[in-house]
């Protein structure tokens, strides 16, 4: 029942606000982390970041002969 417009005896059309709100209320879905980021078989994005020695590293500079382990963590600090 979308945007039901209740015409009030020849006057302007009134959209019942509560009906609209109830319809638009979506149930929030929990985060699905398995769907986030590059999936198996996909190429990962390149990057250009400074390491702890001030050297700039890219995906290429980091890759070893058989690949690499890229570990994303929240902080080395806390």
């Amino acid at each position, binding site marked *: 029942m979308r945007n039901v417009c209740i015409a009030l005896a020849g006057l302007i059309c009134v959209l019942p606000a509560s009906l609209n709100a109830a319809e638009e209320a979506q149930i929030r879905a929990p985060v699905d982390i398995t769907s*986030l980021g*590059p999936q198996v078989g996909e190429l990962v994005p390149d990057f250009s*970041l400074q390491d702890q020695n001030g050297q700039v590293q890219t995906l290429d500079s*980091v890759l070893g002969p*058989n690949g*690499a382990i890229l570990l994303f963590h929240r902080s080395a600090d*806390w």
Partner: protein
Amino acid sequence: MELQEQLEELQAQGLSVAAISYDTEAVLTEFSEKRGITFPLLSDDDSQTITDYGILNTLADEALEIVGPSRSDRESADLDPVLEADIKKYVTVNQGIDYHVGTPYPGTFIVDRNGRVMSRFFEEFYRERNTIANIMLKRGTGLTPIAAVEGSTAHLKFTAYPSNPYVMPGSRISLAVQVEPNETMHLYAPGADTMGYKVISLDLRPVPHVRFEPVLYPESEIYHFEPFDELVPVYQSQFTLLQEIVVEATPEAEEALSQLDALTIGGTFDYQACDDAFCFNPVSLPISFTLDLRGVVRELSESSPLREYFRARARENAN
């Protein structure tokens, strides 16, 4: 630090290692010096790479917008219960929100030499992490076993070992049991229980604050057992079972575990073997491992941009 400890072996396998976080270079320099880290720690301090990788944790931004920075604000707020549950899983159980903005959902990608993802491991709870040794075991390129228990029976030989000799709250490790059935013997795989056979398994005693995941079984083969004219799923050649173990890291678990130096994991390794003519009675072998238990180290570096933040929080709480 585990990754540093495994570095030589990983490099021997041709795999390099890099860690990425939103820390400043100063924090990473201090950290690497303090812990002797020789692999690249990459400073993504504007979180651009984290965003490019699609794993920016936006829950923190959302919560911040709705309620403000501190934990007490959040406690009194009326957050959507799904958002609140996700924050507890992926952001923080008991801390303020604001410094979590810009962090990723923590996880590990293993990519090949062209940068293509071979496997990925993301945690369902921010305090839990697959150890690197566990990741390597799960992808089939395990690192050298340590503290292995070996044995043999009339039907098989086995070597059992933990992926890691020490754990911390949050560690997700594996107990690996490598089995070699003797010639002519076969052992029962999942599915064989529906035909009345005992499937090879590990039965571990419960340990407080430790979770045992369902055993990971490799693919089996179908065997035609002629005496009963049955087709049964079995293992006939060497295979490895992985029993994943997670050390809990809720604040309650950390509190309880801080009293211990080690965890003893014990139980039985059970199987049933048959050869091409006879089925033998099921066998139950006792196994036991002791894992050193370390505490989680949480100390801010000298260069930390958060020192003043935490000092201010401490002052607030004191008032």
